[in-house]
């Protein structure tokens, strides 16, 4: 606990520095001081919104991932586990194939929320629901939606690469309004999950244990799922389904700061943001703007394998 405040302070400072630094890095060059014509426009109206959107999306995914892992008592859970990403992918694909790419974010958002609602309705049909039922329902719905997306890819014709790029996720079209929108979701939902930290601690030992410890387990589950859904649906509608940030960031944070979710949740906001901003800066500067999902998975997957390897030894 003694390390918490300094480490959180450090994370905040690093986050701010990362945002500033990455705003001034890009394929067009431009240092901190530039007099080139158009420099101010590129930095202010293209890079800054993109960096901020990446930060807020990364933060949203990481914080939702940490919450889902605690709720499902499973360190391998990720923010997409209930089918949010496949729902979003279906919405986006429909917009791309049938509407020529109009309203993709709106359709993605709607698809994500509809997926969660379907999972919730199916799982809670018989009154009391267990997280295990929720999890399995989520996986089933997820596979079903993915099958439809695959079908759409098969018939998409020339729009195929648009769908595939969306599936891998990126910030090519990130605008100032995207950055503002994701911040508007992150602040209230992030605060909600931050103040649910202790509930997440108790829930991660089982709902019955949480109830015995004086936690309103049913309400806590609602709040955590609701907050996470808003965060992830928002992230998916802006940037597609970027993988691994939501899965791996909570683990990095736990290794640095321990398992207490009252600390993990706020730390994930900064760590997830930093990771995605750096990944996005790498891709747009050095990899000719490949989908950032490729970069996060490329770095994230080996890291996660190493983590599993470590875990096998440590515990």
């Amino acid at each position, binding site marked *: 606990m003694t390390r918490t405040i300094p480490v959180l302070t450090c994370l905040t400072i690093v986050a701010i520095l990362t945002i500033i630094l990455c705003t001034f890095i890009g394929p067009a060059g431009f240092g901190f001081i530039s007099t080139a014509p158009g420099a101010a426009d590129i930095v202010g109206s293209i890079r800054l919104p993109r960096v901020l959107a990446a930060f807020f999306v990364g933060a949203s995914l990481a914080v939702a991932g940490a919450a889902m892992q*605690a709720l499902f*008592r*499973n*360190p391998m859970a990720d923010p997409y586990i209930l089918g949010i990403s496949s729902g979003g992918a279906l919405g986006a694909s429909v917009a791309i194939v049938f509407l020529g790419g109009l309203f993709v974010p709106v359709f993605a958002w709607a698809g994500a929320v509809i997926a969660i609602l379907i999972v919730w309705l199916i799982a809670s049909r018989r009154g009391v629901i267990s997280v295990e039922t929720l999890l399995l329902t989520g996986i089933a719905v997820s596979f079903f939606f993915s099958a439809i997306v695959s079908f759409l890819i098969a018939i998409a014709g020339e729009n195929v690469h648009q769908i595939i790029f969306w599936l891998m996720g990126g910030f090519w079209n990130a605008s100032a309004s995207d950055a503002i929108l994701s911040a508007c979701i992150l602040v209230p939902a992030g605060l909600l999950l931050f*103040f*649910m930290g*202790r*509930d997440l*601690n*108790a829930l*991660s*030992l*089982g709902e*019955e*244990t949480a*109830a*015995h*410890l*004086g*936690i*309103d*387990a049913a309400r806590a589950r609602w709040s955590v799922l609701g907050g996470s859904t808003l965060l992830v649906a928002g992230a998916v509608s802006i940037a597609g389904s970027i993988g691994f940030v939501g899965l791996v960031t909570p683990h990095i944070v*736990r290794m640095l700061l*321990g*398992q*207490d979710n009252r600390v993990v949740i706020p730390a994930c906001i900064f760590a997830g943001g930093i990771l995605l901003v750096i990944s996005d800066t790498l891709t747009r500067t050095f990899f000719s703007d490949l989908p950032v999902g490729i970069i996060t998975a490329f770095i994230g997957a080996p890291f996660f394998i190493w983590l599993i390897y470590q875990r096998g030894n440590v*515990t």
Partner: protein
Amino acid sequence: MSDPNRINAENLHAGYDTQAIVKSISCSFGPGTFTGIIGPNGSGKTTLLRAFSRAIPSSGILELDGKDVRDYTPAELGMALGFVPQDEPRPFAYTVMQVVLMARYARTSRFAALLPADYDRCHRALAETGITDLAARSIRTLSGGEWQRVLIARALAQDTSVLLLDEPTSHLDLAHQSDILMLMRNLAASGATIIGVFHDLNLAALYCDRLIMIKNGQMVADGTPAQVLTPEKIRNVYGADVVTSCHPATGRTFLMPVKTTNGNGSHLKSLNVLVVSGGGSGAGLLHFLAGRGLSLSAGILATTDTDYLTAQALEIPCIPVLPFSQIPAHELEKQKAMLAGADRVILSAHPVGAGNLPVLLALHDVDPARIIIHLPEGREFTSYDFTKGTAATAYQDLCAAGAACTSTYDGILRLLLPNLNGDENHETRNTN
């Protein structure tokens, strides 16, 4: 708070889905009591405990401190009632202290940090359960017993007046079992209401003031351990045969399972065997032979004798006499009749004084070929003699006259049935 009961249940039903596991249970628990809930596997013990803690829904009256349990807010319940589960999953590597600190959530606003007083309480709970040195350890590295003590410490740190324990000592070694249960007794002595589910009936009898016995979700007995743990009730509820007695070291009710399978060794059944013993020398032998399905009887036994208690428990006929008094002549006549009717007589070497000497001497009228003497390894007849030589001589005379002498139970079995081959021998050993 006019109701003197902490927990009051009337006509309580509870279960899973549509199936009622707990049916119409009525009971109440006052302050300063330690109650054990006992019953066979699947009888509804844990379900009853979880109904009390509101972990599962229930119907019927269920009051905690005079107020319906369902009217408590989650936080109020967390301050009124602590629960120790049998086990709990450990998906994350929390430290022991982090887990115990969760006990204080119910008393803390979600917008506030835990106070030093909360940390002090949790450190005290760690000390009470003897796991202070584990405070910083990852819970994933703990043994089952250590983890169980963490769960107990967490419930203690909740500072509740009611504590529900689901087999709180199932993973603990002998010393820690008694530590934890003494701790619970002390808590009860200082006014807490403790209710525990127990599998180990002796442990429950040793530490609980009151036992509630459950079968098929219904209460079948409620009272002191001595009232509840009778061989009849145990047989009805558990389908097991036990002997109960008062343990000499603790003065508490104590029970031992006994086995009386009469189906095996049927080729021996026709054999009428009388065991002459005393002073506890025949208890083990009677138990050993009872498992073989012989037609067993015991001779004259004083009613304070362990052999008598064993014979009673195994339902072996014998001739009871008053202890420390001369054996009446008509009882000796009865024994003589039994000796005459027995195919084989087993004389288990036992202490003989002036009082029971006639029993031993009566054996001289029996054909020595029918007598088997059991003398434990390393013992002499003289060590059983409290008659200045008469008894030892009597024992030796029987040997000299041709009675078979062996030092093992298996030896007795072989003598009872000389043609008992290896296979059958093996089989009978398995049934023991």
